[in-house]
């Protein structure tokens, strides 16, 4: 049985649709990341699961129970807010104890639970402090502590790391992953950061304009994006895309671009002259050999490798290479776009399946 089951869920504010026919089933113990640009409806979806937003249509089930009309307190979930939302007039310990006190748990057991959570998160020395005396990272920990003191059916995280600086974010990202493994709990995590989504998730739910675009494991989304949106959103630097027409030349399937043509290994069986969008990830572009000629526009060394901005027959492309090639600006070089690395999308933006997949 799945821990959380969402079927045909929709949300409207007045007549403005925010979520449209969302279906998702979360297995017990799974780490799900909802990812998408701001305004895509991911936070609204999370808040609907928490019971903080009214459901316009569809069903939400938690642990098999229909919770559409249940208030948040009856859903047995814990949530970490982007702004942390710590109770400013309560100490760290009182903040963590609040949910347990509401459940009339004995003083002794509350203390045990708080100490266990504090130890897990390294909050031991801060229990007596008020939130205003804590740093951003400490507040974030308290917010997590408040969630883990009880054993809820699911944890909901609403962009918990977006207020932290880059280094701390990276650190907390690993901590959250470790925490999830230790607790073995069901966790739904909202972020706009695709790196967070890739590194944390068991499965990613990519959302755009109120609709689910693709659900799958991080590598599934990376290797086989279902549409142009997912292809462009997941991965940094982003996938290169350019238009081309499908054609058969000398009996061989070929992608015809204004300045070059790319032969495919297998015929995907498309109509002659069909307009396509061709995508290729920067790290899959081969530099130094190949039939194509590119001109170097700009070089961005990252230390790990180099991001080369190139002009390829009037199309700007980015290539990422790990080797330190002797590249110079404005020089031309040989390059190749390997056929088995190309992603094809039709005019509607949906992925065209290829045989090597």
């Amino acid at each position, binding site marked *: 049985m799945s821990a959380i089951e969402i079927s045909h869920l929709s949300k409207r504010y007045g007549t403005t649709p925010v979520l449209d026919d969302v279906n998702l089933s979360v297995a017990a113990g799974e780490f799900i990341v909802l990812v998408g640009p701001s305004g895509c409806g991911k936070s609204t979806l999370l808040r609907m699961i928490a019971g903080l937003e009214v459901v316009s249509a569809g069903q939400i089930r938690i642990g098999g129970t229909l919770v559409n009309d249940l208030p948040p*307190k009856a859903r047995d979930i814990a949530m970490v*807010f982007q*702004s942390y*939302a710590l109770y400013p007039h309560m100490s760290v310990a009182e903040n963590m104890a609040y949910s347990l006190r509401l459940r009339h748990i004995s003083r002794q057991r509350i203390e045990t639970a708080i100490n266990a959570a504090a130890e897990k998160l390294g909050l031991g020395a801060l229990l007596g402090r008020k939130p205003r005396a*804590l740093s951003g990272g400490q507040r974030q920990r308290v917010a997590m502590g408040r969630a883990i003191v009880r054993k809820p059916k699911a944890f909901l995280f609403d962009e918990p790391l977006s207020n932290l600086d880059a280094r701390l974010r990276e650190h907390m990202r690993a901590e959250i992953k470790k925490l999830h493994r230790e607790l073995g709990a069901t966790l739904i995590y909202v972020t706009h950061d695709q790196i967070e989504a890739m590194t944390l998730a068991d499965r990613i739910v990519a959302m755009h304009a109120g609709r689910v675009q693709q659900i799958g494991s991080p590598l599934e989304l990376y290797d086989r994006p279902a549409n142009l949106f997912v292809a462009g959103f997941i991965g940094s630097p982003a996938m290169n895309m350019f238009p081309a027409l499908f054609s058969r030349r000398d009996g061989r399937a070929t992608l015809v671009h204004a300045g070059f043509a790319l032969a495919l290994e297998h015929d995907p069986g498309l109509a002659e002259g069909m307009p396509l969008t061709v995508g290729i990830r920067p790290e899959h572009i081969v530099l130094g050999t190949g039939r194509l000629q590119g001109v170097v526009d700009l070089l961005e060394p990252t230390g790990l490798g180099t991001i080369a901005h190139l002009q390829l027959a009037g199309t700007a492309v980015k290539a990422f290479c790990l080797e330190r090639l002797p590249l110079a600006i404005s020089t031309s070089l040989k390059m190749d776009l390997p056929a088995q690395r190309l992603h094809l999308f039709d005019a509607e933006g949906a992925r065209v399946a290829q045989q090597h997949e």
Partner: protein
Amino acid sequence: MLRRILYWSAHYLLIALYVLFALFPLFWLIKVALTPNDLLYSEGIRLWPSRIGLEHFRFVLTNSEFPLFFRNSVIVSCSTALIVSLLSSVCGYGLSRFNFRGKPLLLALMLITQMFPLVMLVAPMFRLLAPLGLTNTLTGLVIVYCAFNAPFATFLMQSFFDAIPKELEEAAMVDGATRFGAFRRIVLPLTLPGIAATAGFVFTAAWSELLFALMLNSSSRASTFPVGLLSFVSKFSVDFGQMMAAGVLALIPACLFFLLIQRYLVRGLTAGAVKG
């Protein structure tokens, strides 16, 4: 260095002048109240009399109806402050957190009530209260004061609730509280400074109100102290010494009240709630 000293001297001099200007009437009130009658008119204008005495206070407390007026004022002002604070907290929360049909209309109506000069309403108020037997009563005054102060106090409270992040209540509700529970345990403690400010504002308004207290009451039984102050003005003379002594006494409850609430007024309670 010299420039710095000059700058700070000017800074403090200006503040001192301002404080002096604001407190001078108060000083004069106390000075006149302490000046014995025989010196009041004979010494001319002096900053401090050559001899001071408490005879005016003694007279006001023992030979006038002032203690009664006082009691009336305390009852009326405290009741008004209490009722209005309660009402405006609940209403302000509703206006701050919920959207409901007719909300803009309600807000407009509340605003309109603040647009009338009070004098215009004296006669209709009297006509309303007289048949109900509420003239010459403290209850009548409390009702009128509540009606006049509630809209503004509600706006005030709404702005205090607006300043408290919604996430705090949501966090409490996810933690297991009902909406009312979240209001009582999380929002209300954080709004205490706001409630104290509102209560202080309403208390002072009721404490110093003269027009309605004068017009709706004809007996000293239900008179408040501002009305009582007027009794020192007779047709042929004004008893300044006793009037000022009564005025000084009238300051005491107001001071006590503000002393009571001032610790809430200065606290920045929401610090640290959300990412600042």
